[in-house]
């Protein structure tokens, strides 16, 4: 999976959220860190076209994002920070079926994919539960299931552990470690990134530091403590 950003800028009114970003990402595990409001989420949202660049081009696996939105979104799964905003339907399996319907019109096939995904994540018992009866951790796992059941080639996770207690955080990290897909994680949880291949620090609309975690994380801890 290759993600390329060529001279990308994102403007919101007079403010530049991202400025002249040039980067290629091909590593299996990429972490994005930076202070609040630095442009991390905007950076991640560029990759599946949720944010349109004001200048420049974003290319995912050779596909220009803005010209191939559906094809890119089928390849890039996106996990939002707040699962309540990600889950569209009132019952777990109904929500998972929503995302699968265009690619799997057969109901039986859809149901078997849903069961398989929930079982893989160890939450098979939640299939018929109403979303509003789930805990925050369960909701986040369900949100991840809705993304994984679509079998994306690449995953973008926007602060996936922010609302989780220690038990669910560890459970989520164990699931992420076993995933075959390459992933990009935006987080403030620096410990999570120690086993990653590459870490970017975004601040003041640009990439301040880029490298392996053993170089970037100590630098970040001293600069931003």
């Amino acid at each position: 999976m290759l993600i390329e950003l060529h001279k990308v800028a994102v403007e919101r009114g007079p403010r530049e959220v991202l400025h002249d970003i040039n980067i290629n990402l091909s590593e299996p595990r990429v972490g994005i860190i930076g202070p609040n409001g630095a442009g991390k989420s905007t950076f991640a949202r560029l990759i599946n076209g949720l944010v349109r660049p004001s200048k420049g081009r974003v290319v995912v696996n050779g596909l220009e994002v803005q010209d191939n939105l559906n094809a890119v979104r089928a390849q890039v799964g996106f996990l939002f920070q707040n699962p309540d905003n990600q889950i569209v339907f009132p019952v777990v399996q109904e929500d998972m079926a929503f995302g699968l319907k265009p690619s799997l019109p057969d109901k039986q096939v859809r149901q078997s994919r849903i069961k398989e995904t929930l079982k893989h994540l160890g939450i098979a018992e939640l299939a018929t539960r109403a979303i509003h009866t789930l805990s925050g951790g369960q909701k986040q796992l369900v949100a991840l299931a809705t993304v994984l059941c679509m079998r994306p080639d690449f995953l973008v996770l926007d602060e996936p552990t922010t609302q989780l207690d220690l038990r669910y955080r560890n459970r989520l990290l164990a699931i992420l470690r076993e995933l075959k897909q390459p992933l990009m994680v935006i987080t403030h949880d620096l410990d999570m990134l120690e086993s990653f291949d590459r870490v970017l620090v975004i601040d003041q609309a640009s990439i301040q530091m880029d490298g392996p975690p053993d170089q970037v994380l100590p630098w970040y801890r001293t600069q931003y403590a």
Partner: protein
Amino acid sequence: MNASPIAKQPSESWLHRCSAAHKLLGLFVLGTGLVLVQNLAVMAIAAILSAAVWVSVQWPMIRSVCRQPWRFNSLTSVRQALLWPFLTLLVLSLYIAYFSGWTQALVVLLRLIALLLLALAVMAATPVTEMMAVVERVLQPLDRRGWVKADKVALMFGICLRLMPVLLEQWQDIRQAQYARGRHSHPIALLVPMLVRTLQRTNELADAIDARGGLR
């Protein structure tokens, strides 16, 4: 554990076994019939029958609550869900009683209770995706003429059902945040943050739908 008057019951009641189209058609016909009837005795029977339908659908939840009430730490959600509709009905009945008499007020009260319970039973016994499929099918003739987008209206219908408990929770959060700061809830002070948060949530939800391929 959670209890809710519209909680989906995994068990198969007789209403679960009916098709979504039949249930929605039945709700429409009974609703129309109840609006046309003005007889108090008929309305009382309709309210009792509607209550029986709701109980038959929610029987597993009612039985669990009765057997082990301590497991249901959120019985308050039932109170929260039912309190405001029934308070509204009460105020409406008093208003009608003042202008048209007690008999008319009772007819209206029983009619609305019957309708509410029937709607709750249908919602609890029907997957939202099946209801959406019915809405989409019903709107197909209008879609073909280009007057509406049937799939979008069906999705809106589904999202409305999903957001009801979320918005209720949001309302409680805002109210409690104001109480915590020593403020009594004022309608404007509640409505403004509610509106802002709902708009933010709408944007996020639209992004989430887009991220999963949206409506294709």
